[in-house]
Structure formats: C-alpha cells, structure tokens
C-alpha cells in the first residue's frame, strides 16, 4: 500500500513536472517574441551580425517565424471617416494594410517621406518625438544638427542598397536666391535648389555649373473663399474673375521657359489631371458683363493675400501679386490691396477659409496621383474655398475608390468640369523650376517627387554640400509638411516604397513591393530582409506598424511629434484613427 502510494506520488510528481515542462514551452513561445527580438539585436551588436544574418538566416527564419509576435493597430470601426481599418504585421517581413474603402493610390502614399520607418524602440525611447535625432535605414546617418547653420550626415556603410560614394553630406540653407547662386558660383556648395527665373540663363551660360530642370508637377491658383465672403459668394463674380485674368501674360512675363498656362487645376502629367474642358479663355468684355450682371459694374474693393516665399509655382511672389493687382484693376475695375503675410499665418488663415479676399497660393505634388491635387483642395472637409461643392466632392469620393486610372476618366472629367463651372479658385500656371549644381558633380539630379537621392551623386571630393531655401523645422517628418524638413529627413529615414530618380514611378525601398487586392481594399507589403537601422537594430514588420501607428493613431502614446497634427496622415488617409474630438 505504501509502495502504491509512493508510486502514485511519483506518478503525480512526474505528471506535474511534465505539465510544467509543457507550460514552459508555451511560455517561451509567448515571451520569445521579445527575447527573440533582443537576441537578434544583440547578435548583431555583438558582432555576429553576419553570422546571424547569413548563417542563421534559414534557421533564424524558422525560429523567427515561431517567435515573431506581430503587432496590430486597428480602428474601432470604419465610421471614423478615415481610410485605414487596420495595419497588421502578419509576418516578420510582411505587413497587411486593410482599408475601409478602396485606396488605389496606396503605393504612392506609402512612398511619401512622412511615412518613413524608424525602429519601434527608438520611437518609444524618444517619447514619440524624435525631432532632432531620427534613426532610419537610409544611406546617411545623422551626425549633428547645428541649428541656424547646417545638418551634417555621414555615410551609412551598412546601407542595404549601394552606399554613397562620398563620406559626408551637409545640408545648408539660404533664403535669398541670389545668396544660393553666389555660394554655388564660389564653389562652397555643390548643389542648390530653387533657382530664380532670372538666373536660369546665368547658370545655363556658365560652363562650371549644371542646369537641372525640376519636373515637379505644380499649380499656382488665385483662391477665393466663395461661400463666406461677399462678393465671392456669387458664382458670376468668380466666373468673371476666371475670364478677366490674362494668364498667358503672367506666364509669358513672370515665369521661366517650360512653364505653361493651367488648362486645369491638376497638371496633365498626372493621370486624369486634365480630363474635361479647358479653363476659360481670357475675355475681359465678357468678364465685365458678368460682373455687371452680378451687380458689380464698377468693380469692388478687396485684398490679395500672399506670403513672400519662393516656390516653383510662385518664384517671385511680390512681383506676381502686383501683376494680379494691375490686371484686376485694369480688366475688371477691382481695387485690390496687396497684403503680404507671414508664411505660417498665411497658410493657417488661407487653408481655414478665413481670408476675406483673394489668396495667392499653390501646390506642388507630393505623389503622382490626381487625388493629391483634387481631394485635398476640393474634398468635403476642406474649408479653404468656403463650403465644399457636392458637385465636386461627390465625384472625388467616387474617383478615389476606382483602382484603374482608365476606369476613372469619366468621373474626373465630371469633377474637373464642375471645378470649371463653380470656380472655387482660378488655376493660373504650372511653373517650371530648376536646381543647379557644380559641373564637377556627377549624376546631379532633382527628382520630380521628393529631394534628390544624394547617395546616387558623386561630388569631386568626399563631402557633398546641398543648399536649400530654409532650415528644417524638425527632422521627424511624420509630423512635418515643408519640403525643407522632408529633404533633410529623407536622407536618414526611408518609407516602404519610394519614387524613381526621374519620374513618379514607385520603386521598392524597405518593401520589395506592396500588392493590392482586386478592389484595392487590402494591401500586402513584403518587406526587405536583412536591413539594419543606423543603431544596429534589425528592421521588421513591427517597426512598420509602430511607425505608421505613431502617425496615424491619435490615441497611440507615441502620437506626439512636433505639433501633434500629423497633417499628411490625416489628409492623405482622410482622418486619423481615434481622432481627437472636434473643438
């Protein structure tokens, strides 16, 4: 009996041990995500990275597959108004984006710099605000940001692509075009942006310099907040202004060669950009007759607001504003005061629809899709031109859900015709702009979308100095919108996809590709393996989910940024997940 009892105790003990062993195994799987991640990182840090990558690649993959715990962010439902339903790390090297409605432009959006990927650990360590210390996978690592002077980078030797052929990259800035050109001519910088129109010829005639045309699609328009302020509420007044401005005269006299009068709001280089009827011809008599019909036979008094900031679509803001003032007076009898505003205030006031006169503003393409031009400006939620017109925005909603450009032609034709009929603004010009470099720089370029890929240029020595318009606002570009910040970030942080060096074609970056389902509601991105961040950690799908989540999910603790607005996330994807309550 005692033996039996002993045997039972032993059996029970064995059973408990066996059970404990079984629990341990399951526990190690759960907890293995972290330990596995850490282990991978440690291996790399310990100098066994090559072994880890290569030798344990297959094994590691099997092991990683078992250990990897994918993260997910998800909207509670699709009633919040945004496009994204969920983002899930479905595998260590695969991310699945599930949309609330079709998003045919997903690949173009995912190629945009604000959607760059940083290590999740770094985002957490920086409290969701790596404003001056970004870590990415790009061809350059940030050395230091000398405020007021320059941003300095050094080459990332473990870059997954071809490393830069030079050691150091320096980005500097000067607001004055003349200063930038002088620096280039004196050889203290290798490349400059935004060449003044009057300097085109100077550069073209200088054998020591290379003239680089920039093919960024853009548009300058004369905006009106048409439902809030008289007399712009009257469509006849708006149509009169559309006919009463000699746009050809503006292009011929104030823009460099290669610029063209805007036949539509969106440039024709964007698919479906210029379907539908061309804009009104210049006809001052008909314009004055329309004004008279509207009760403004003698014109009226108003203002032209603008900011004194050089852009490809508006290279000489003050001079062009005076030209509008002259034309409005001579052609239509409209007495317009020219008012220059501080840049930030101007953007705030104009995009909020609070300017009581004309505003002179433009748009440079972020990505090569018609939604980038039309949806932002004429979507239902944009108050810039007053209450949005259903005749326009309903077509835009319809068009944004059609995956094929060809299938969307009719919809965008209707939308463009409605814009022409309702005249929320007057498109003026698609401006040509240019960059310039020293002739000694090989493969100097300026991409149509985004800043140059500096690691593909070859300067005459080991340092490449680039001079742009202004200092970056911060180096965390998920929460920035200005081109100067994006150019500085882009050297360090890469998105899943990218734009080609000479076109708007989308290329692989951290993802080898993103493939959509038939109705463009589910996009699956296959990630590049063996990629390291600048801090030595390995890139995987969770970095993608966390990076996107920090920008997109307003309830995420990492959703901090610089201003916290994450404009590109909210506007390109229609809304942030868990948006803060409207004030």
């Amino acid at each position: 009996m005692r033996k039996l009892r002993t045997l039972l105790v032993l059996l029970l003990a064995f059973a408990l041990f066996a059970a404990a062993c079984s629990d341990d195994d399951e526990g190690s799987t759960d907890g293995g995500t972290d330990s596995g991640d850490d282990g991978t990182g440690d291996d790399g840090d310990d100098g066994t990275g090559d072994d880890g990558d290569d030798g344990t690649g297959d094994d590691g993959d099997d092991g990683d597959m078992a250990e990897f715990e994918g993260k997910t962010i998800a909207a509670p439902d699709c009633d919040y108004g945004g496009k994204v339903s969920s983002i899930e790390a479905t595998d260590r090297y695969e991310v699945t984006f599930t949309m609330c409605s079709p998003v045919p432009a997903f690949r173009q959006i995912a190629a945009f710099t604000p959607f760059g990927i940083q290590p999740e650990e770094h985002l957490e360590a920086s409290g969701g605000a790596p404003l001056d210390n970004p870590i990415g996978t790009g061809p350059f690592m940030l050395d230091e940001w000398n405020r007021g002077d320059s941003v300095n980078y050094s080459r990332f030797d473990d870059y997954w692509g071809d490393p830069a052929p030079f050691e150091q990259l320096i980005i500097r800035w000067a607001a004055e075009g003349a200063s930038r050109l002088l620096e280039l001519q004196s050889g203290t910088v290798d490349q400059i942006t935004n060449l003044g129109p009057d300097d085109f010829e100077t550069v073209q005639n200088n054998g020591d310099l290379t003239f680089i045309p920039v093919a960024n699609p853009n548009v300058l328009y004369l905006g009106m907040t048409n439902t809030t302020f008289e007399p712009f509420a009257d469509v006849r007044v708006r149509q009169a202004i559309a006919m009463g401005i000699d746009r050809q005269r503006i292009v011929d006299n104030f823009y460099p060669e290669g610029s063209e009068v805007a036949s539509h709001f969106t440039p024709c280089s964007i698919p479906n950009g210029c379907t539908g009827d061309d804009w009104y011809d210049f006809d001052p008599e008909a314009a004055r007759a329309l004004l008279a019909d509207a009760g403004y036979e003698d014109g009226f008094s108003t203002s032209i607001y603008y900011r004194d900031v050089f852009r490809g679509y508006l290279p000489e803001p003050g001079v062009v504003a005076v030209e509008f003032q002259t034309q409005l007076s001579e052609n239509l009898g409209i007495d317009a005061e020219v008012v220059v505003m501080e840049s930030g205030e101007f953007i705030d006031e104009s995009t909020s629809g609070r300017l009581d006169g004309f505003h002179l503003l433009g748009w440079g393409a972020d990505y090569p899709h018609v939604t980038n031009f039309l949806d932002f400006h004429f979507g239902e939620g944009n108050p810039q031109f007053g209450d949005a017109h259903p005749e326009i925005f309903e077509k835009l909603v319809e068009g944004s859900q059609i995956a094929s450009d060809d299938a969307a032609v009719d919809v965008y034709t209707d939308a463009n015709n409605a814009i022409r009929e309702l005249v929320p603004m007057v498109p003026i010009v698609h401006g040509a702009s240019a960059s310039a470099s020293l002739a000694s720089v090989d493969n100097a370029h300026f991409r149509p979308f985004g800043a140059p890929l500096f690691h593909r240029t070859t300067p005459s020595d080991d340092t490449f100095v680039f001079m742009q318009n202004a200092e970056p606002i911060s180096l965390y570009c998920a929460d920035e919108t200005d081109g100067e910040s994006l150019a500085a970030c882009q050297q360090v942080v890469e998105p899943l996809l990218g734009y080609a060096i000479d076109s708007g074609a989308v290329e692989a970056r951290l993802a080898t590709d993103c493939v959509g389902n038939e109705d463009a509601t589910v996009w699956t991105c296959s990630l590049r393996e063996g990629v390291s961040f600048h801090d030595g950690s390995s890139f995987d799908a969770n970095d993608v989910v966390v990076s996107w989540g920090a920008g997109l999910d307003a309830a995420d603790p990492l959703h901090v940024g610089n201003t916290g607005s994450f404009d590109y996330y909210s506007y390109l994807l229609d809304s942030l997940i868990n948006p803060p309550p409207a004030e």
Partner: protein
Amino acid sequence: MTQPSEPVESEELLLTAGPAKGLWRSAFSRLLRRKSGVAGLIIIGFIVLVAIFAPLIAPHSPTEDFIGEPNTTRRDPPCVHLLGCDEELPEHIMGLDGNARDQFSRIVYGSRLSLSVGLSTVAIAFTVGSTLGAIAGYWGRWVDNVIMRVMDVILGFPALLLAIGIVAALGPGLRNTLLAIAIVSIPQYARVMRASVLSVKEEEFVAASRALGAGGWRILLTRVVPNTLTPLVVIGTLGVASAILDAAAFGFLGLGAQPPTAEWGSMLAAERQQIFSAPHLVFFPGIAIMITVLGFNLLGDGLRDALDPSLNE
C-alpha cells in the same frame, strides 16, 4: 522790448541771443557762407522741385507697366539714346523694374512720398514733443515728472524696434508708419525743449513779464518758446533725414507704403534678390535715399553751425 540774454548750451546745440527776426536773418546769411549748408540747400531744393513737378518730370505714370511692348522685357537695364543705346529700344533712363515699370518715373514720384513722410513725421514729433517739453520745463514739479518719465519710458526702447512694434499693432501702411516714426521721435524734441525752457524761464525778461502780471501761458508762448526754437530747428532738420531713412527701412521690411505705391525703401526690397542680375534696380533707389538723407544732414549741420555764435568769427 526785453532782450533775450546770452545763449545757453544744450545737448551740443546752442541758443542764440538777439531778437528772433534778426537771429534768423543773420543765421541764414551765415548758412550761405558755409559750403556744406549750401550743398544741403541745393540738394534739398532740387529734390523739392522734383517732388513738386513730378508729373512734368516723370515720362510715365509710376504704376504704368510696359509688359507686351515691343523690345521690352522686365528688368531691362537703363537705356539712354544719347549715350548710345539702340534707337530701336524704348528709352528708360533708369531701366524697368520687375513689373516692367519705368524706374525713373517711380524714383521721381517716390521723392514726393519720402519728403512728405520726412516732413510730416518731423512736424508731428516737433509739435507734440516741443509742446510737452515746454509744459514740463515751464511748470515743473509733478507735471514735469509725469511728462518726462513717459518720455524716458519711450526712450528706453530702441526707436526702430518700438516703431516696428507700433506698426505691427496698427497694421502696415504709410499712415501708420508715419505715426510710428513720429511717436518714437517725440522724446528727443521734448527733452531739448524742456532743457531750453528751463534756462530761458530764469531770464530777466521772463521775470519782468511775470512781474508785469502776464499769465503763465502768455509768458510761455510769447516770451519763452520763441527763444527756444533754434536747437529744435537743427534737430528737426536732421530728424527729416532719419525719418526718411526709417520710412525706407519700413518699406524694405514690407511695413511701409504698400504696392503699387512708389516708395524708395519698398522698391529696394522688391528687387533685392536681383542685386547681381539687375543691379540698377537696387542702385537707383539706394542712391535716391542716400542723396536725400545727405542733403538734410548737410543742411542740419550747416544750420547748427550757423546758429552757433561760438563758431562764427
């Protein structure tokens, strides 16, 4: 008539003796004997004539543009046929600006604005400042304390920054610029006037008037003030120069005259980016500002010398 006593020195400027009428006549004759003063008079006289006869001198309206005219492009360099410029090219002796407007016509019309800004601001600052200074100096005690402490507060701010603050609060534009420059100039007139009044009111002829039963205001206006004006005239003349410079600075900063008004400072600012590609567009407005300011400075110096008996004989 009681004679004023010997002059009293104040802030490097000297009051002079003698009846007012004789003083000015002799001062003018002394001014004409000084080359710098004569040069200043000639320059200012020339600019005043240009301003008065601008519509006759300027070949075009300052806002007329020549876009679309044959052989014409924006920012064309100066073309003077007499100096060999091609006859087929339209003559614009100072070239065209960024909006293809005749630069010479804009410079000519700009003289009206600069002179009117300079003279108006000085007139306002002179009137208000000297009135406050006279009251403070003559009545003294708490009136003096209150007025002069307010002046000290205004003087405590850098003048141009304070003026920019005032324009930022009132909004850009010529009228507000003029007002801002005038406000920040008031204290210097008030201080000089007060110092002069403090010395003159102790003179015997003032005491005599008081003894004869004249009231405070009467004494101040008829006995004291006329004998304190000479240093203010010198300051005022120099003040016109600095007001013109300030107005140009405001124009350059975009806070002064607004487009399409022809104002030298804003003309300079509008084309500052073209300093290498079209230097004539910054050269001529800059020269216009320089010559005008030089004229007023030379005249101011000449007046100071002419009104200072210690420098005469």
